[in-house]
């Protein structure tokens, strides 16, 4: 049996078919095969959260999944979050407004994690937001501005729906 396999998957709405080594992690596949370098590689053992992507809408560590396991799935990365016209979406705009990023390393994981969280919990408390991002390390902001951004985004999204 070969150690390579051809997989088909959808990333940010676009279909791809690529051959990959079966031991390649999803995050390495996204970065090296698809040139989607928005998703960052940090600790490579599931602690830092920088590589978080959405798999069929559910957040997962891109370093703790093999690319072959994503065959047939719909993946969303940070590149797929913006509005169709390319402008920042509500959550991204809230990060900008609140200085929710400085170096930007943790940002792709923060945004994907909070995208899933806010879809599931549109009216979170500050504590719930802090728990939601407890699996994402940020060494710049002290988290305060990220929490503020998440709460602003939740508020704007709720107002947009009512």
């Amino acid at each position, binding site marked *: 049996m070969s150690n390579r396999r051809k997989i088909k998957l959808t990333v940010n709405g676009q279909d791809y078919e690529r051959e990959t080594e079966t031991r390649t992690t999803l995050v390495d596949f996204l970065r090296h095969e698809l040139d989607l370098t928005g998703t960052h590689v940090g600790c490579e053992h599931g602690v830092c959260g920088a590589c978080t992507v959405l798999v069929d809408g559910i957040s997962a560590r891109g*370093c703790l999944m093999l690319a072959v396991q994503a065959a047939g799935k719909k993946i969303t990365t940070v590149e797929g979050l913006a509005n169709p016209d390319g402008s920042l979406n509500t959550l991204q705009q809230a990060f900008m407004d609140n200085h929710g990023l400085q170096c930007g390393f943790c940002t792709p994981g923060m945004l994907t994690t909070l995208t899933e969280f806010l879809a599931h919990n549109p009216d979170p408390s500050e504590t719930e937001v802090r728990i939601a991002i407890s699996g994402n390390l940020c060494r710049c902001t002290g988290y305060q501005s990220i929490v503020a951004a998440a709460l602003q985004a939740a508020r704007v999204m709720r107002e947009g729906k009512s």
Partner: protein
Amino acid sequence: MKPPPFVYHDPATVPEAVDLLSRLDNALPLAGGQSLMPMLNFRVVAPDHLVDLNRIDALSGIAIAGGVGRFGAMTRQRDLEFSPDVARAFPIMQEALSHVGHRQTRNRGTFGGSLCHLDPSAELLNMTALHDGVLTATSKSGERKIASTEWVQGIMTNALRAGEMLTGIELRAWMPGHGFAFEEFARRHGDFAIAAVGCLVVLDASGTIEKAALCVSGLGPGPARLAGAEKLMAGQRPSHELFRAAAVEAEALDAVDDAFVTAAYRKHLARVLTYRALERAVAGRADRRSAA
């Protein structure tokens, strides 16, 4: 920090998976991958064959009937966390799961994977022992039931034999309205616990304790039920003196030192957390303690 080469298999059925695991040399099953993938990335393990169980739909599912909860080994921790049926029959489970890693890891991590990996302080291991769990191991020759008391054979060593894989877990549900509490101490939220205690309690109409279950994690290679304390409390009126007396047994358990924490500290924590768990389970307070 990349996995070593291996031959990848993704069977669609349990018989195929069992056949691969029994036939191939140096093969490892891959469940949710939230422990095995880091070990592969670190090259702590180097299997020749990786048998991915994620395409076996028959291994996932939750069925609760007749006071027994049956869980497929590949049931995601996320599915336990968000299942209304689990919340009703095993209300402590949500509280315990809030300490398991983070949302992103619970989304992939599985019930059976956690039990097989067997971190000494794993919350789901505590839940299994607390609810008198029975595990089903499947091999080419059929199924074998393993009591949770027999599951832990040593540090990170489970009771599976060569060619066997864990396919299901059964937990015994307690009567509706029972008291429960899960107390854990870790340095950071989502870290492995230094010590953790699960507690279930049933009070009769007069407020007397009918029965109680206590399970301590983090001290030895697996969870420890406090049989003496459970016996001591049955038929007694709840009191701080009673809780203190029960918690003494937690401190008497054998404990291990590691680079960060002494055995004495673990034992102290076990006593304190046992007391707190009892107090909260009896008070029936359902306030979720999400921060460590």
